[in-house]
C-alpha cells in the first residue's frame, strides 16, 4: 500500500523535479512580476512547494510547519500588509533598468558560486545506494518533540558521549524563543498602534518628544494640533482610535 516504499528513487526523482520546478519557477515569478499581489501569490506557491520538498526529504513535521506557520501565517500577514497599502500607485512598481542589469550580473555570479558550492563537496553529490536509500517510515515527530524538550532519543544508538556533547536537546532555545516571540509581539503591537504625542506640558518626557518632532519639522512648522493628543488620549486625527467615542 505504501507507495513510496518500493519505487523510491523513481518516485523521489519524479516529485523532486515537479516540486523543484514549481519552487524555482514561481521564485522567478516573484522576482520578475511587477504586481505586488501577484508576487505574494507566487511566493505562496513557491514556499508551498518548498514544503513539498521538505516532505520529500523526510522532514514531514517541518514541512507541515512550513505550510502552517510560514505559508498559512507569515504570508497571510504579508498579504494583509499588501492589502493595507494597496493603492493604485503602489501595485505596480517598475524596477529601474540599471538595477536590473546590476542585479543580474551580481545575482548571476553569486548563483554560480553557490551552485559550485552546492556541487562542491564530494559527500554531497555522492548518490545513495538505491537499495539503501529508502528509510522506512519512522515516527520523526516524536524524536523531534523529545529533542525540543531536551532528550535526544534519535542518538541513543550512537555513543553516549555524542548524546551529551552538544548534539543534545534544544530545550533552552525552545523556551527562550518563546520569550523572543513575546517581545516581538509587544514590539509589533507597539509599532502598529497609532501615533500619539502627549500634550505639550512641562513634563520632561513630552518635552523630549516635542523636541524630536521639532527637529524634523523645522522647515514646515510643527502643527501642534496635528500631533497633540488631549489628555484622555482622544485624537481628532485618528478615526481608528478605539478610545474615540465620537
Amino acid at each position, binding site marked *: 500500500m505504501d507507495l513510496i516504499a518500493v519505487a523510491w528513487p*523513481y518516485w*523521489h*526523482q519524479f516529485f*523532486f*523535479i515537479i516540486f*523543484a520546478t514549481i*519552487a*524555482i519557477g514561481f*521564485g*522567478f515569478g*516573484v522576482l520578475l512580476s511587477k504586481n*505586488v499581489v501577484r*508576487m505574494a501569490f507566487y*511566493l505562496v506557491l*513557491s514556499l508551498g512547494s*518548498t514544503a513539498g*520538498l*521538505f516532505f520529500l*526529504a*523526510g*522532514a514531514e513535521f517541518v514541512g507541515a510547519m*512550513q505550510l502552517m*506557520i*510560514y505559508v498559512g501565517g*507569515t*504570508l497571510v*500577514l*504579508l498579504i*494583509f*500588509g499588501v492589502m493595507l*497599502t494597496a493603492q493604485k500607485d503602489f501595485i505596480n*512598481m517598475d*524596477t529601474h533598468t540599471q538595477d536590473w542589469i*546590476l542585479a543580474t550580473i551580481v*545575482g548571476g555570479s*553569486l548563483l554560480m558560486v*553557490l551552485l559550485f558550492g*552546492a*556541487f562542491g563537496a564530494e*559527500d*554531497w*553529490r*555522492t548518490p*545513495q545506494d538505491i537499495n539503501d*536509500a*529508502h*528509510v522506512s517510515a519512522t515516527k*520523526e515527530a516524536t*524524536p*523531534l518533540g523529545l*529533542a525540543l524538550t531536551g532528550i535526544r532519543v*534519535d542518538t541513543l544508538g550512537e555513543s553516549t558521549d555524542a548524546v551529551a556533547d552538544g*548534539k543534545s536537546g*534544544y530545550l533552552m532555545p525552545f523556551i527562550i*524563543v518563546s520569550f*523572543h516571540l513575546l517581545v*516581538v509581539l509587544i514590539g509589533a503591537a507597539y*509599532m*502598529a498602534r497609532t*501615533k500619539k504625542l502627549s500634550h505639550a506640558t512641562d513634563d520632561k518626557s513630552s518635552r523630549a518628544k516635542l523636541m524630536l518632532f521639532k527637529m524634523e519639522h523645522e522647515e514646515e512648522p510643527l502643527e501642534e494640533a496635528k500631533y497633540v493628543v488631549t489628555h484622555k488620549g482622544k485624537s481628532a486625527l485618528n478615526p481608528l482610535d478605539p478610545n474615540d467615542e465620537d
Partner: protein
Amino acid sequence: MLLIGTVTVSWYLAVGAVLFVLGAVCMATKRNLLGVLMGVELVLNGANMNFIAFGSKVLRPEGSLGLDGQLIALFVIVLAAAEAAVALAIALNFYNNHNTVDVDRANELNG
C-alpha cells in the same frame, strides 16, 4: 527509468541556492517594500532548504546532520515569522508616515 541520476543532497542545495539568490536579488531590486520583505522570506527559505537537505536521512544516511537539521529549520521558521511580523509592523508605520511603500522614497536620511 531514471531521467537524470539519483537525487542527491547537492540537488536540494541547488534549489536552495537558487531560492537564496532569487530572494537576494528580489531584496535588491524591488521598490515596493513588501516586495523586499518577500525577498527576505525567499532568502531564509533557501537557507532552510539546506538544513533540511543536510538533515535528511533519506538522502544521506551516513554523516547527515540528522534531526539537528530539522530542529534548526523549525527554529528558523519561527524566527522568520517573528521577523516578518516586526518588519511588517515597521513597514506599515513607514507607510503611515510617508504615505508610500516605495523604498526609493526612504531618502530623508542621507549625507
